[in-house]
């Protein structure tokens, strides 16, 4: 049954990209357990505004786990302790009365903090711009059923494509590596005939952009896949490696 809980909220506050940040602890009282984590933050923010203080800034938008905007590192886990869910899909019934909840931003050199818990994930866009597409112009497509694609490949491509670009993989990785993100996009296109034509060019371009932007190297710890809110699989990384090694060997 629903009940109310009280707890300490330890939040990273940072006024701007170049300012120094620190943790601030707030006492939060009587939160119904059917409140979502972000609604709880809304309540805390309302209280801060009432006191004339600036609210805690965090990224959020759709609040149904698909836009990839929310990005909180809660109690040592990106998107908090729930598996296969984003921060906005996290409900307070996961927490206990009296505990301390620590909320941090994604910490990665490639994702600088903008304010408080909000980070700049533009690096992900840049990787996609480097090659995450099929090069053809609007209107030039043939009939959608002209090329049959096996259901197995289509389903696997769909699984890879369900990445929401939130950056939890980078946040979870002790190396700050973006391999799971890059591999998901590379895999989606590698699995479909439409993407094969420029597969080699794509994997080289996206990977070199990823390296250039200062993401770390993958050491296959698997933390990315374990924390991914969309359950993107680790095998995508192997596929990315295979695509890359084959592309380089055929140069």
């Amino acid at each position, binding site marked *: 049954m629903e009940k109310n809980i009280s707890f300490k909220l330890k939040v990273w506050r940072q006024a701007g990209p170049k300012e120094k940040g620190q943790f601030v602890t707030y006492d939060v009282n009587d939160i119904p357990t059917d409140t979502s984590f972000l609604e709880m933050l809304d309540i805390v923010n309302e209280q801060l505004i009432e006191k004339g203080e600036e609210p805690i800034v965090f990224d959020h938008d759709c609040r149904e786990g698909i836009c990839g905007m929310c990005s909180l590192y809660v109690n*040592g886990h990106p998107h908090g302790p729930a598996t296969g869910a984003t921060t906005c899909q996290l409900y307070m019934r996961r927490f206990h009365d009296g505990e301390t909840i620590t909320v941090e931003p994604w910490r990665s050199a490639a994702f600088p903090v903008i304010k408080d818990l909000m980070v700049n994930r533009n690096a992900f866009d840049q990787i996609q711009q480097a090659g995450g597409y099929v090069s053809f112009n609007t209107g030039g497509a043939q009939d959608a059923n002209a090329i049959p694609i096996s259901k197995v490949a289509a389903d696997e491509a769909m699984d890879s494509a369900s990445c929401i670009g939130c950056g939890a993989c980078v946040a979870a990785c002790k*190396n700050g590596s973006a391999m799971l993100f890059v591999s998901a996009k590379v895999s989606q296109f590698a699995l479909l005939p439409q993407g094969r034509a420029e597969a080699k060019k794509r994997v080289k371009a996206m990977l*070199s952009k990823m390296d250039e932007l200062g993401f770390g*190297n993958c050491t*296959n710890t698997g933390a990315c896949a374990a924390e991914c809110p969309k359950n993107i699989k680790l095998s995508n990384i192997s596929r990315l*490696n295979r695509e890359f090694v*084959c592309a380089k060997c055929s140069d």
Partner: protein
Amino acid sequence: MWLTNSSVGRKVVMSVTGLFLILFLTFHALMNAVALISLDAYEAVCEFLGANWYALLGTAVLAGGFVIHIIYALWLTLQNRKARGDDRYEVSARPKTVEWASQNMLVLGLIVLCFLFLHLYHFWAKMQLPEILGDFPMSGKNALATTFGQWWILPIYLIGFLAIWFHITHGFWSAFQSLGAANEKWIERFKCIGWWWATIVMGLFAIEACYFTWFFAL
């Protein structure tokens, strides 16, 4: 050159050298096993792998493998620490599916490295090195006797073996993953093969070390 300037290339180098070292360890364990059966036969193997050109070449390649593996490991770790950013997490938790070894490969590697130096001092420095320098090498049997004649060497070796075991249980499947040889099914298979491989090889080493200690020290 993509093997140095791309992240996947660097991992490929780690994988190839790592697999090579696993292969070497396997042969090493098998050669040692000869001593379990007959010390004379073991002596013959040692003589065969003296300072001949092929043994020297083998040693050089092996040393190269080690050096590259270690240098790349340090290089990658430095890059990875930089990628993590200046602020560390206040709280971090390891997800259940993440192996402890996978997040501590550098520490394990450093333990293995220390063990390696000790081991080189015990054997290589007394056998192949003098021969290269034109001195008279110690026989394999004598080297075993001097080393394992002291009982306290055994626990040190066992700790080294354990570190290598942890290192390989992750390193084995990780190498295939980095080379792109894995998929959803084969990740699990490689993990399983890697676990058994590491257990059999390191188990064999452990049995050998125990046997030599029993034989020479007790």
